[in-house]
């Protein structure tokens, strides 16, 4: 069975950190992923940096620029994924804009991603309608295609996308880019309930989740949460990013535990 559906069959809410590949430097990516797993992360979202990340806020724009100036390429990210896979079985999702993937060639990218042990794919600027062939080809190679839904996505479409996605859906928490502030009003919980009701598959919630309090608030009805900008902002300021990631993710893991909403071991069966 593929790693992502297996993970979400296990009890408990899942913690998914997002890390820009090659940030803060090339040497940090593998240790950061391993440290995140030790700190309680269940799945890793690795960001493929792009020059024009139009769904991302300031933090991920900055970390992407730094990663690019460190010389990160899609080729390097696939090699790094393979290096991670040789040391752990934690599911890996690649998140990246479509252009670098097109430049490499969709067939080559998917083949190499599959060979490198990549489990899932998020392409924020490729709606399912534009990516019919790419996504079908990914699934046929054992890669989960994770579609995004947003607060303004009609319920019927959420239902349809969940069926097409097969394994996992990603609910964008807000109308906005990554690193925004969560909606303080009731809108958010109504929206998450709507996704919960409509989605036939598990779903994670991301965008704007930055504190243990946010985690508790969002994790209630979701199957997992994604934390990106808040984590990267801490890494940016820290002299010891691996230690910083360990500490922050441990806090979030504790928050999920305190909320009584995480599996007792934090590990999939």
């Amino acid at each position, binding site marked *: 069975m593929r790693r992502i559906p297996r993970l979400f069959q296990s009890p408990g809410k899942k913690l998914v950190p997002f890390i820009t590949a090659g940030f803060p430097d090339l040497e940090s990516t593998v240790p950061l992923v391993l440290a995140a797993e030790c700190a309680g992360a269940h799945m890793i979202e690795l960001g493929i940096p*792009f020059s*024009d990340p*139009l769904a991302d806020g300031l933090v991920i724009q900055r970390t992407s620029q730094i990663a690019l100036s460190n010389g990160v390429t899609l*080729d390097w990210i696939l090699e790094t994924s393979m290096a991670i896979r040789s040391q752990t079985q934690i599911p890996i999702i690649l998140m990246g804009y479509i*252009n670098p993937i*097109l*430049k490499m060639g969709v067939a080559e990218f998917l083949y190499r991603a599959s060979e490198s042990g990549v489990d899932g794919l998020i392409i924020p*600027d490729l709606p399912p309608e534009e990516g019919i062939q790419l996504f079908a080809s990914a699934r046929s190679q054992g890669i989960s295609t994770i579609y995004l839904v947003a607060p303004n*996505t009609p319920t019927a479409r959420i239902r349809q996308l969940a069926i097409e996605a097969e394994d996992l859906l990603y609910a964008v928490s807000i*109308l906005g880019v990554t690193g925004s502030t969560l909606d303080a009003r009731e809108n958010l919980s109504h929206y998450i309930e709507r996704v919960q009701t409509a989605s036939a598959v598990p779903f994670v919630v991301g965008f704007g989740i930055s504190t243990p309090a946010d985690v508790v608030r969002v994790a209630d009805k979701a199957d997992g949460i994604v934390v990106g900008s808040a984590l990267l902002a801490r890494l940016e300021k820290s002299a010891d990013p691996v230690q910083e990631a360990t500490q922050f993710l441990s806090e979030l893991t504790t928050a999920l535990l305190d909320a009584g909403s995480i599996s007792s071991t934090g590990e999939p069966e």
Partner: protein
Amino acid sequence: MNKSSDAVLQRYEQPSRRGRFGDFGGQYVPETLLPALQELEQAYATAMEEKQFKEDLDRLLKIFAGRPTPLYYARRISEELGVHLYLKREDLAHTGAHKINNTIGQILLARRMGKTRIIAETGAGQHGVATATVAARFGLKCVVYMGDEDIHRQRLNVFRMELLGAEVRSVNSGTKTLKDATNEAIRDWVANVENTHYLLGSVVGPHPYPTIIRDFQTVIGHETKAQFQHEKGRLPDLLVACVGGGSNAIGMFYPFLEEPVSMVGVEAGGRGMDSGDHAASLSLGSRGVLHGSASYLLQTSDGQVQLAHSISAGLDYPGVGPEHSFLKESGRVSYLTATDEEALIAFQWLTKQEGIIPALEPAHALAALQQNKINLSPGSNIVLCLSGRGDKDVHTVASALGKDLS
């Protein structure tokens, strides 16, 4: 040059229903924007069926933008070139460029959709000014995103936008130019999609923008066709226009695509094609996806978008409209380049010979004629789209010529 292949006369029906010009175009956007694009497509389709909308549009183009713009015979330059050269005087439209044709159309759509806030991106500031102008005219709140680099290069236009009541937001990400201003406008739109219309300025971006903006700009070509017919009782042999995103060019070309008329688009060759510093997406770029559509773009071997360069801020963009990519692939339109230096020479040439100071953008199109880059039959009839006036560029030209205006 004046050969008319069978392809020329075939029916031209682009885009397809899903916003595709052949392999190009499409909707490569975050899920959040899909409902807004659908709403826009719907509003546009409904508006086009209503007589009232068309009347409102035509009336504003006439009494607010000053249309029709003249078709002017450039006698002295024609004599030098041994051809008959006509200039479509978009420089005489309100705010000094063709950009107003599109902003008037889109602001009417925004009002129909009940949007209360307008956002736009701008490079040289011409589209920003044209947007701020119509926002002022209709009393809508307006925010214009502009790269920090461009804010410094185009301070006069920044001040014009502020006078018109718009808020100009400086963009400090990436290359701090038009490309990044566009990213920032899209990010704003994602966050404020319910009350905000993104008034995109060129025939780029996700479907339906390239089609809507093209349609609003075809007033250039339709007027030209009628004016030329009136003047000469025939069609021109050749159309020439500059191409950045490509809105003035497509507006001029589109009504002639099924006619036996040759067309040339001129891109910015910057410091030369070997220099790496240019904005020649069609001539030197490769296929990719930028700002929501598939087209030609300047990119690295790893798919990162590259910095464009042109002396003209309006051509300084690493992408190009998807329909131009299609027209290039199909062979219907030829695309070539003119350098910064050639554009500067053409700028002075037109100014001295005809008493018209052109913007640096159409000076590139003129340079293609002046430098004999196009094979012209003696006595042929040519229309050049003079897309804007050059007042905004005098500081750039002065500094390029080593003159100190301070």
